[in-house]
């Protein structure tokens, strides 16, 4: 079943071209995703990212419960801060999803999960709540995805849009900090965070606003009026790829472990108490047979490696591409790939086979820009 994002009609009024992503109908572009990409890097854009899943976790045992589920030590996450990416693993250490957790208080946490896993992550959490013996009253989990929206304002000129939205105190937010229940356009939102998935949250400015559907509609329209260019999921994908950010389902899944993905951002090494944590430590100590790397094709090459395309060193197949795209900033194709750890020649050239032809590419550790 395809479900429309709540603000689809508003997106269309702003020029959105809908398409399907992970069971959602939402705008994949607003006419020219390259321009949307460049506007994010050089000015400011607004994305409706409500296709991402949102949960509210309440209760006296929530902190303890989450600590047993995810790969990062959450005791280091302060109030009004986000955890950064954390992983949900299966018992073999395979990656189910990466989530972002928000610590409001010890007994109130929020989670943002990837669109394909809105239902399955919840089921997984409920399964573990039961297995670990927590009472629903001590760990209450609500899926609020369908009743709320998430609007991202990204780019060097994002502060101008935040001013126009009447948000107070956003200037003081450091990366991954959030304002709890701030006023936006004179009404209370759930939160405003300094975050995003475009790279601008670290390079310049990126903010996300979590609120109700009607409020989100006003915010989206006002952001565009204030100069933000509306942008869709294709630009979001090329932006994340330039940063080397990982897409679950494409760059990682239950058959990959966090060490070969080299997802150090999402791990506290040595943590023993999460589901699959022991397997992470085991892989770390034993070593892995493949590594995630970046591939940068030659300038001007617009042949785009796609998921599954082979990577060669001479005649030897050393790996395969997991996602590829065109980088408007670098004017060339870039990709993420797994290569054998014996052949993870960072800085060296390899070949990637795109539709039967070989193209030279340099192995690089992302970000590409």
């Amino acid at each position, binding site marked *: 079943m395809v479900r429309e994002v709540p603000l689809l009609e508003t997106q269309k009024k702003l020029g959105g*071209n*809908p*398409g399907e992503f992970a069971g959602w109908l939402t705008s*994949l*572009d607003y006419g*020219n*995703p390259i321009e949307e990409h460049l506007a994010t890097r050089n000015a400011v854009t607004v994305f409706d990212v409500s296709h991402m899943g949102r949960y509210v976790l309440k209760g006296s045992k929530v902190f303890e419960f989450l600590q047993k589920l995810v790969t990062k030590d959450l005791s280091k996450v302060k109030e009004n801060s986000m955890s950064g990416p954390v992983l949900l693993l299966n018992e073999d250490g395979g990656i189910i999803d990466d989530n972002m957790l928000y610590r409001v208080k010890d007994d109130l946490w929020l989670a943002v999960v990837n669109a394909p896993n809105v239902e399955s992550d919840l089921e997984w959490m409920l399964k573990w709540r039961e297995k670990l013996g927590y009472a629903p009253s001590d760990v209450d989990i609500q899926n609020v995805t369908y009743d709320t929206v998430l609007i991202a304002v990204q780019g060097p000129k994002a502060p101008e849009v935040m001013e126009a939205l009447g948000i107070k105190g956003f200037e003081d937010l450091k990366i991954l900090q959030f304002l709890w229940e701030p006023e936006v356009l004179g009404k209370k939102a759930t939160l405003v965070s300094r975050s995003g998935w475009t790279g601008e949250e670290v390079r310049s400015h990126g903010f996300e606003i979590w609120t109700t559907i009607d409020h989100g509609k006003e915010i989206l329209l006002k952001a565009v009026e204030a100069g933000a260019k509306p942008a869709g999921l*294709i630009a979001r994908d090329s932006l994340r790829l330039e940063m080397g950010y990982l897409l679950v389902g494409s760059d990682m899944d239950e058959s990959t472990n966090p060490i070969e993905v080299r997802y150090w951002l999402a791990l506290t090494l040595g943590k023993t108490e999460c589901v699959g944590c022991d397997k992470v430590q085991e892989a770390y100590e034993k070593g892995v047979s493949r590594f995630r790397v970046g591939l940068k094709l030659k300038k001007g090459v617009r*042949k*785009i490696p796609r998921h599954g395309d082979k990577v060669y060193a001479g005649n030897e197949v050393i790996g395969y591409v997991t996602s590829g795209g065109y980088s408007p900033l670098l004017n060339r194709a870039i990709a993420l790939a797994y290569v054998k750890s014996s052949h993870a020649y960072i800085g060296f050239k390899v070949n990637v086979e795109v539709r039967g032809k070989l193209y030279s590419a340099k192995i690089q550790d992302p970000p590409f820009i």
Partner: protein
Amino acid sequence: MGDIVVKTKIGEYLVKDGLYYTESDEWVKVEGDTITMGVTDYAQKKLRYIVNVDLPEPGTEVSAGEPIATLESVKTTADVYTPFDGEVVEVNEELIDSPDLINKDPYGAGWILKIKTSNIDTSKLLTPEKYAEKIRAAEEA
């Protein structure tokens, strides 16, 4: 008859009058023994922004059903197929520097190539009405 605009929940797609269409979303204009081909408005909207076009050399012999050009978009890669045997006589070289002409003007400046052919059989092609039906069926599936 005039042009047809197919409106669905997802989008609006122009089907131009005076052209034939294929099941694989190409348009075909027949002039004597030469056909001009491109991809339809529906195809370019599904492919989205096109960043690269690979064209055959003029003089290339092609067979019906064979891929003759490749379009690389921000979303995917797609082949263009010829409906008839023949010889490529001209390609749109503007597309090399401006592949997005296909997005901007799929039935005009975004034409892809011309093929000279001795066995034009328009009964193998779709009329605008039939092609519009095909889009509707695909969108509503």
